[in-house]
């Protein structure tokens, strides 16, 4: 057997009931190699990796580690074979420090000594270029720090084969770069890495080889240097996919939503958004770029009425909506769909059915279906008086009806499922049992039911595969064509450059400028995101600056 092979899979299959999650999969991982595992949602990547790391046991086939057959039937076994997995959802204990989490579960004969562990963690960190504070508690950490802890945890246990499940899904471009640097350092050290990701350009940037899965089957393995994004997509999807995002031209209407000198505080009481002014017109997509946590969430919440506005104004069609309840704002046609890092935290109730999630916004309006009898205004007959009476009583009970109308919600759910092509067994399936893309479609679909004229959507393609992402872009473009103003808070600059009409850049809650997407470059956006380029300071001459950063004279809404 080839000495260079660290891990080999032969004819691995795994069934869940009648469904084959993995079917006859064989490939190998060389020592000192980064292998990207590519596949759409539900193609069996995570299942396969779970078998390697001992969480599942294959129904058929054999795993070889260093050329020897291996039985990996528990995570402890995987650990013995020096295989470590970093899961997509971190498995850390919040109230422990980084160091405590790292040593958790490691059986050592030596007594626990915080200092010794801190030293060892420090050693691993400096060897591969991690930035980590062993004494920091997990609940104080950002997502990327938590991920670092997870990776160090596997390294501390002496893993030679690392599996990273969608590590970049929650990272900013800068953090991703850092992670890639670390991965390269590990590769130099002779470690083998399998990385699962959806982002093709990352695959191209980091991997040596790419293995592709489609619907649980192994399609093939190619050298990264000899392939292209388009070829990989074709392997993944099974057909040619147009990788260009459409940007339809529309008639720009009047500004629908205007933000003026807005200041918002974050949860700890410091300013999250500082003197922000911008507006969204009907029929345009305004992108919001910025590194994670520079006020996007707070801005969304403020517009949706979930967060207190410290000063400044938010005007919807000329009317101030500051201080209105979230429901009142929603009824005016301002809808928000925010996909948080864990996908399900905001806007959806994960254990509840699709139907129940449909009515979250409008259940309060459910009546018992009372239809007022028609009465002529001048009619003074006894019969008309009776009808008026019925109308008054019926109307009162209809408005104050104590029960929800699931039949109505179910028909709405069916509409969303049909129109957005959500794949779900039924309308009564709990949302958390749907795959990521379908969850996001349900959320977006519910917001669209309200026929919003301003749609705020934050990270709508977070963690989605190519096909689902393009479906979401398509939905947004349809909304744009229908005259809706879309605020698109995104992560991927390439996508934003292709999809948005204008891009607004935030840096630490401050507006760095609004630029036309077709006239700007990724580099310029990067500089603005980092705060190195401030178009607000030096107005005018810059390339691609959108003229209407400030609202035009003739268009200003009168208060």
């Amino acid at each position, binding site marked *: 057997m080839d000495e260079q092979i660290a891990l080999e899979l032969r004819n691995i299959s795994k*069934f*869940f*009931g*009648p*469904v084959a999650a993995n079917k006859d999969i064989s490939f190998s991982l060389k020592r000192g190699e980064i292998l990207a595992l590519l596949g759409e*949602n*539900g*193609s069996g*990547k*995570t*299942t396969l990796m*779970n078998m390697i790391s*001992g*969480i599942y*046991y294959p129904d*058929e086939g*054999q795993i070889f580690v260093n050329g020897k*057959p*291996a*039985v990996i*039937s528990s995570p402890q076994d995987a650990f013995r074979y020096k295989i470590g997995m970093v899961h*997509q*959802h971190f498995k850390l204990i919040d109230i422990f420090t980084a160091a405590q989490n790292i040593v958790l579960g490691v059986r050592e004969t030596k007594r626990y000594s915080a200092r010794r562990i801190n030293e060892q963690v420090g050693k691993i960190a400096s060897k591969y270029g991690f930035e980590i504070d062993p004494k920091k508690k997990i609940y104080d950490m950002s997502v990327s720090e938590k991920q670092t802890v997870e990776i160090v945890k596997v390294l501390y246990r002496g893993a030679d084969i690392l599996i990273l499940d969608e590590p970049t899904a929650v990272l900013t471009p800068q953090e991703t770069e850092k992670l890639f640097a670390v991965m390269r350092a590990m590769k130099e050290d002779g470690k083998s890495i399998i990385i699962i990701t959806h982002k093709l350009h990352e695959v191209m940037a980091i991997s040596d080889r790419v293995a592709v899965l489609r619907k649980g089957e192994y399609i093939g393995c190619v050298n990264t240097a000899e392939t292209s994004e388009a070829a990989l997509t074709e392997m993944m999807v099974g057909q040619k996919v147009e990788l260009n995002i459409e940007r339809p031209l529309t008639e720009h209407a009047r500004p629908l939503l205007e933000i003026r000198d807005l200041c918002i505080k974050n949860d700890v009481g410091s300013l999250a958004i500082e003197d922000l002014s911008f507006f969204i017109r009907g029929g345009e997509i305004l992108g919001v770029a910025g590194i994670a946590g520079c006020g996007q969430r707070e801005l969304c919440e403020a517009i*949706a009425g*979930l967060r207190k506005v410290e000063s400044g104004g938010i005007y919807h069609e000329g009317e101030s909506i500051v201080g209105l*309840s*979230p*429901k009142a704002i*929603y009824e005016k046609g301002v809808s*928000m769909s925010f996909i948080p890092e*864990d*996908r*399900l*935290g*905001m*806007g959806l*109730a*994960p*254990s*509840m059915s699709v139907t*129940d999630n449909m*009515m979250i*916004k409008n*259940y*309060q309006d459910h009546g018992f279906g009372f239809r007022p009898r028609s009465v002529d205004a001048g009619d003074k007959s006894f019969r008309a008086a009776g009808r008026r009476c019925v109308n008054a009583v019926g109307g009162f009970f209809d408005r104050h*009806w*104590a*029960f*929800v109308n699931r039949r109505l919600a179910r028909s709405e759910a069916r509409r969303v499922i049909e129109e957005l092509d959500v*794949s779900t*067994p039924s309308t009564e*399936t*709990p*949302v*958390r*049992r*749907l*795959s990521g893309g*379908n*969850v996001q479609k349900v959320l977006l679909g519910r917001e669209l039911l309200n026929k919003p004229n301003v749609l705020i959507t934050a990270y709508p393609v977070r963690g989605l595969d190519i096909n689902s992402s393009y479906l979401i872009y398509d939905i947004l473009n349809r909304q744009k064509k229908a005259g809706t103003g879309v605020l698109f808070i995104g992560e991927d600059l390439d996508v934003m450059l292709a999809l948005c009409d204008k891009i607004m850049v935030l840096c630490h809650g401050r507006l760095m400028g609004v630029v036309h997407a077709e006239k700007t470059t990724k580099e310029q956006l990067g500089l603005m995101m980092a705060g190195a380029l401030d178009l607000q300071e030096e107005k005018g001459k810059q390339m691609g600056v959108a003229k209407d950063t400030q609202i035009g004279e003739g268009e200003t809404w009168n208060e």
Partner: protein
Amino acid sequence: MERVKEPLIHITRRDSMPVWKSLLIRFGAILIALLISAAFIAAMAPDSQGFFGFFSSLFSGTFGGKGGRRFWLTLQNTALLLCVALALVVAFRMKFWNLGGNGQVLMGCLACAMCMYYLGGKIPNPALWVIMLVASVAAGAVWAVIPAVFKAIFNTNESLFTLMMNYIAMYLVAFFISFWYPEGTGAMPPLSDVALPALGNGQAGRSLLPVLIAVVVTVLIFCYLRFSKHGYEISIVGESKNTARYAGINVRKVIIRTLVLSGAICGIVGFLLTGSINHMVSTTMDGNMGFTGIMVAWMGKFNPLIMAVVAFLINFLSRGMAQVCTDFGFTSEALSDIVIGLIYFFFIGCEFFIVYKVHIGRRKKQTSGLSDEASADTVQIETAGESDNAGMPVEERDGHFPQSSGTEASSGILGAEAVSGSGEEPSGKQQVREEN
């Protein structure tokens, strides 16, 4: 291919199981537990009344005796326990772990007793009964709403708070008894002439009121949780407070309103206990139903109708085992506790076999799989697994369930399953493997 040692037992998760099959498993588990218990008791019994004597004694605890007295007593206890469990479930649906059932019931009892003590004989009895009911309900509600207000405003830990309120209630009762009857032995004499009269003759007449009230409360709570806007709001707040806020729900209001309801139902139980059944109050009048009720709620998967069955089962067992102990001449309660524990163990343990499938021996090719009925009900298994973890909001992870009911009941598979609300999948570990 080269074969290596493989794990003997191989566990996989089921997609779904037809209802009749899961019911069959549950009944099978109880049957096995009863057979083992019977063997155990037969072995322990001083004289050989034998294996079948156990069964006849067990059933005579509920169904034996003259004139259906035991049956009505079991029914009455079931009714009271079910009411407390329903009160708790209303809060549990919101992931508000109300452990203060005992205290809320006791406060209901105390308020009722106060009315009887101070107003008894001074106003006409029917008016007094109305006042008793109102006072009990109000006292129970107040006892539940205090922790709710703190939770809503300061986000205090409701489990500890409600738990501590139990002790305050207990000592308040003790205080009032010694205040009213300073010379007594610490027990309050029954004030039977001002209490509610029985609705008929015998035990049936005495038990009828609690049973009727329990039926009404069960139906109302079932509809409230399942169909009403309030019930819907409770579920959403329990799922995610952020989502609730976003939906325009006033989370504080929902927490407080729900706990008023929860405490009020406990207050009704207090009213029944003091006003109708015992005609007095004591510090142990709650019968620890606040904790047994937790078990009923979880074993009943938060579904009022299943909970009714569970509450009956629990009372059937405890009365049956008391009868077994009497008939067999056991003086120690430990034996009865062991048998009850054994039955719970099997009943809860069988949930594992409903959720997972166990393969013994070497792997063989699975072609058709386990369930023909589980047709297309599988959406992308891979991601279903992922979202199991993703779907767990912080509250859920933190809202671990304190095990105070003294049995292994609320842990493990069943507990996790009930958290997920719909009770279809345990949101527990993905680890589905054991090695032998």
